[in-house]
């Protein structure tokens, strides 16, 4: 073998290893970098509020996010509650519709119809979130206001409806895959025992696919928590702490970062807190994804 071919072989192998190393380095540096910039918010510094002010109630028991002012307050509770509220509402809207639509897609739709229905659903998944945010801001806000007569036109419910539009295609696709993965023999056995279509789907297929569907819902919740543009445009962005009122305005962790990062000074406490919010988001969605994987792994281990 000529030395040139050998050199090419070694160089190519080195390049492949380098690419893999860069990929690992990429995620490690995202984590390390965001974490490093977030650290100043976690240690007590002179002139800045103490770290426990991030979560502990302030004067009069209020949780306030007010980064601009004479005495800036950086309590993240309203933001975290806002994120959870919008994501939970979105999941409440999207999960039943998504799973039911997946049942239809997997069991009721003919093979020919499936060839155009599935791409249409996947196309909805490809719509940019700015466009969905714009639609939420104009069309959905008008509908919600007409339906509920709420006081504030842009609120958590409108943002949740927009986010639900974004995550429903994911839920449909993943749940459809989960349902179709149920072994054919199991379903045919149920049919052979005289079960109707509904009984087979509700009593056999759904329980069998439950871990995978649960994992899909966890992933969708993670995506809903990480959604930025729709909530930035449609949620009203007022950090109001009203966990039980869907028609109150809400501000999420993501919208806070996107809205305020352009205005912070280098080295300021505000900047460190924003990076801390980013770190919390990163760790939170990572945890949700790990939980989803664990659910699927546990279930398959139990089966075998």
């Amino acid at each position, binding site marked *: 073998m000529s030395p040139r071919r050998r050199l090419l072989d070694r160089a190519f192998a080195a390049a492949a290893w380098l*690419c893999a190393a860069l990929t690992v380095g990429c995620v490690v540096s995202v984590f390390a970098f965001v974490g490093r910039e977030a650290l100043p918010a976690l240690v007590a510094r002179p002139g800045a509020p103490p770290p426990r002010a991030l979560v502990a109630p302030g004067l009069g028991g209020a949780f306030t996010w007010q980064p601009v002012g004479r005495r800036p307050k950086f309590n993240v509770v309203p933001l975290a509650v806002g994120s959870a509220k919008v994501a939970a509402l979105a999941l409440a809207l999207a999960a039943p*519709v998504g799973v039911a639509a997946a049942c239809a897609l997997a069991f009721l739709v003919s093979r020919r119809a499936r060839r155009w229905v599935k791409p249409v*659903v*996947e196309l909805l998944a490809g719509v940019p979130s700015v466009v969905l945010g714009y639609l939420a801001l104009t069309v959905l806000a008008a509908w919600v206001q007409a339906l509920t007569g709420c006081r504030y036109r842009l609120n958590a419910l409108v943002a949740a409806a927009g986010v639900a539009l974004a995550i429903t295609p994911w839920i449909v696709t993943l749940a459809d895959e989960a349902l179709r993965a149920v072994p054919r023999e199991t379903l045919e056995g149920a049919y052979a025992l005289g079960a109707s*279509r*509904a009984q087979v789907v509700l009593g056999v297929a759904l329980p069998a696919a439950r871990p995978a569907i649960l994992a899909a819902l966890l992933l969708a919740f993670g995506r809903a928590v990480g959604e*930025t543009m729709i909530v930035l445009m449609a949620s009203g962005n007022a950090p109001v702490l009203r966990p039980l009122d869907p028609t109150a305005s809400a501000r999420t962790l993501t919208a806070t970062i996107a809205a305020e990062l352009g205005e912070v000074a280098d080295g300021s406490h505000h900047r460190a807190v924003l990076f801390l919010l980013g770190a919390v*988001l990163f760790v939170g969605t990572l945890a949700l994804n790990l939980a989803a994987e664990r659910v699927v792994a546990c279930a398959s281990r139990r089966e075998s």
Partner: protein
Amino acid sequence: MNARALDRAFHAAAWGALGLVLAATALVVGPLAARGAPHLTWRFLAGRPSADLADGGVLPAIVGTAVCTLLMTVAVLPLGVGTAVFLSEYAPSRSRAARVVRASLRNLAAVPSVVFGLFGLGFFVLGVGRGLDRLLYPALGPVFGRPCVLWSAATLAALTLPVVAVTAEESLRAIPRAQREAAAALGATRAEVVLRVALPQARGGILTGAILAVGRGAGEVAPILFTGVASFAPDPPTDVRDMFMHLAHHVHVLATQAHDLDAARPALEASALALFLVTLGLNVAALVARDRTRGGRP
């Protein structure tokens, strides 16, 4: 509840839900097309915006989006395909290296896009950029150490790396082992097997991954918000150190920060429709490419 009533209820609920999802797609497409189509003229696509963004066109935004996604593709394709080659050709399937790389790709895919924006600002703009300035332009003000299209492209490349790597690996794994073994039996080195046998056949999957990446790059706003995009930059970027306009960001700016919303509404609706058509075209192209490589499996 007797079986027949349950059956009827189930059918109604399932079909209703599917109809709702399809109606949601119509809900997205309908208002976009109806409102935006009258304003989507050639003058709009080929003109420059007026200073208050309410009038004029979006040519700088279209060119800026194209430049940014082109730079992103140049960065992400080699890295993603290289990682895919590593996973499918060089690393044994259960080895620790393969597990670590796969876990990294999964974690990278899970990061919210706004966190990528944070990372891009902190690492690329302020970290690498300032470092380059200290090396190359020690006496001047910030040249690389400020937002520009180069750092936006780099941030988007980090965002879309998982998509490219996963689709490329999938298509590499689909190639039968026998072909690689035959090439090796004929005396090919491993690099030659990959370059001459595996990669040419994986072209379809790599193309699909690239199109999906470009689709995301054209639609994401949060990663570029602080790393390079400008609300008004009437001259398209000619240098990697320039700031640029971006179609998706333009939609965001017009919807939330326009001085005169009523005057800006035609531009907003046309921009939203243009962005939707671009991403729709890219997603359809990706679907077609994926169908072709998978042999039409729905």
